[in-house]
């Protein structure tokens, strides 16, 4: 019987610890598929963040490093400068990349480091139990914004792709989502491209994946996907924010 569907080789057999309905599993799979398709597992080094995906080092079969909170792009820089022929990626959440690690994010993008960043934006701190993230929406109720995020005292959500698009150096910035089959297919293309760019030496590539957190949003997995469509995407429009290939 022909195999029509199988687990990507770049994923280990470890059981994922993520909550039911969480989209980390989908994105892990897409990253692993990209690694498989490009045949780069043996020379890839991944950097796990602090947050829900801290244990990503157990799930990817390539060599892995666990970084301190927000510093994955700096760690990735150290790895890439040491081994320029290796493929280096970071996998970071919104607290890690857009709050505590914002300086590293912007500076690494500004240097145009030839690395790949997978940025999971689910508008909340998941691992610590649902606090306000830099990307939490206006009015979003979290443990630390119990009356809803108030822009007057808690500021506005940050749009990372738009922010980084103002820089000259990044090669590729795209925002995707994984709340529907169509969106997952587009996310797969974007993630593959972000890795291929690095293989081809094109420079800094970041894919922002608008994701879900059913547990801390207090929604069923299905309703969480709806929330992405109705609330998240209008504030975080999907699309390509920068692609140096397209600029001639």
């Amino acid at each position: 019987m022909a195999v029509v569907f199988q687990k990507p080789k770049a994923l280990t057999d470890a059981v994922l610890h993520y909550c039911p309905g969480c989209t980390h599993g989908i994105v892990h799979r897409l990253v692993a598929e990209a690694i498989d398709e490009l045949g780069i597992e043996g020379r890839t080094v991944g950097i796990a963040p602090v947050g829900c995906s801290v244990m990503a080092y157990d799930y990817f079969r390539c060599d892995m490093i666990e970084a301190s909170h927000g510093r994955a792009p700096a760690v990735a820089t150290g790895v890439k400068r040491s081994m320029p022929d290796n493929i280096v990626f970071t996998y970071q959440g919104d607290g890690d990349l857009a709050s505590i690690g914002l300086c590293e994010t912007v500076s690494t993008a500004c240097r145009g480091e030839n690395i790949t960043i997978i940025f999971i934006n689910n508008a909340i701190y998941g691992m610590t139990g649902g606090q306000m993230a830099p990307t939490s929406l206006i009015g979003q109720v979290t443990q630390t914004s119990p009356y809803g995020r108030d822009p007057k005292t808690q500021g506005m959500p940050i749009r990372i792709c738009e922010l980084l698009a103002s820089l000259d150096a990044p090669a590729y910035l795209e925002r995707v989502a994984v709340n529907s089959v169509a969106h997952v297919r587009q996310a797969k293309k974007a993630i593959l491209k972000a890795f291929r760019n690095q293989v081809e030496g094109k420079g800094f590539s970041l894919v922002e994946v608008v994701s879900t957190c059913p547990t801390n949003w207090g929604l069923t997995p299905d309703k969480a996907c709806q929330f992405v469509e109705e609330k998240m995407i209008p504030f975080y429009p999907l699309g390509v924010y920068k692609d140096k290939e397209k600029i001639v």
Partner: protein
Amino acid sequence: MSEKVLMKGNEAIAEAAIRCGCRHYFGYPITPQTEIAAYMSKRMPKIGGTFLQAESEIAAINMVYGAASTGRRAMTSSSSPGISLKAEGISYLAGADLPALIVNVQRGGPGLGGIQPSQSDYFFMTRGPGHGDFHIIVLAPATVQEMADMTRLAFELGEKYRMPAMLLADGTMGQMMEPVVLPGESVDPETIPATKPWAVTGTQMKREHNIINSLYLKPDELERTNFERFERYAKLEKEECRWEEYMMEDAEICVVSVGITARVSKNAIVAARKEGIKVGMIRPITLFPFPKAPLAKAAEKVKGFLTVELNMGQMNEDVKLAINCSKKVAMCNRVGGMIPGADEVLAAIRKEAK
């Protein structure tokens, strides 16, 4: 080929590191260590190495974490306030058992403090600079020659014991010029990662994946890693303590001092000897591990100790602990960037001789 050249202490560290096979330097400007970064920025591009001026001290130490994870000899350098920022990264290096070189050319504090020499990071460095139970190797050079020699020692000990290692110099050591014989034979940087089977160099599809990590959510596992690490520290203390003894044969007073104040103290000791005062010195070279044994041995015969320090008495406490408070441990200190003259130290020695 060994050659004798006149160099600043900071530059001697940089050149020695290159000759030890270090090709990855990540730093951020801060006085009084910036010559290290300046030297690296000139040399590294010519020899295929990396000089990267990071966006912050925090980023720099994490770049070191990344480069060290690949098994390369990697380093950063800074001065006291910058080391505070690096503390988190140093804790992660220690937690992941990664060897790397960190240079701290100390200036006065706390806060922004000043830019003149100090030894006031003594506690901070010797107790493990960062959160959690850990130590790093701490070496205290007192000459430009030692700045160069200890750079090599720091890389070698760090790799042997899988620990971060620090050169802890006072600002004087970084800024002064002296003749120095640099290591003649250079280490081929390409040979180093092969000695580290734990490094993340890519599996090449030939082995299970390596993971560089300091997270252990199971308490019994985390406890085990702590115990194992401290067994290594015990071995380090047993085998790698280094110190210099000066005129200790018949000494009744034992001066204990490091770095620039050890040099000032030597002059004071010579002057005191001319007055008939039997005084000598034990100069700790490794601050972690602290040379407790020679101090305890000295305590059996001397009347008392005198620490000469550029802080408010931090090493003084370690001497008291080393000798189990069996003798008086007096102190002669200046802080804030002030350095005691030989006359001040001599006066302190005379006082203890009475």
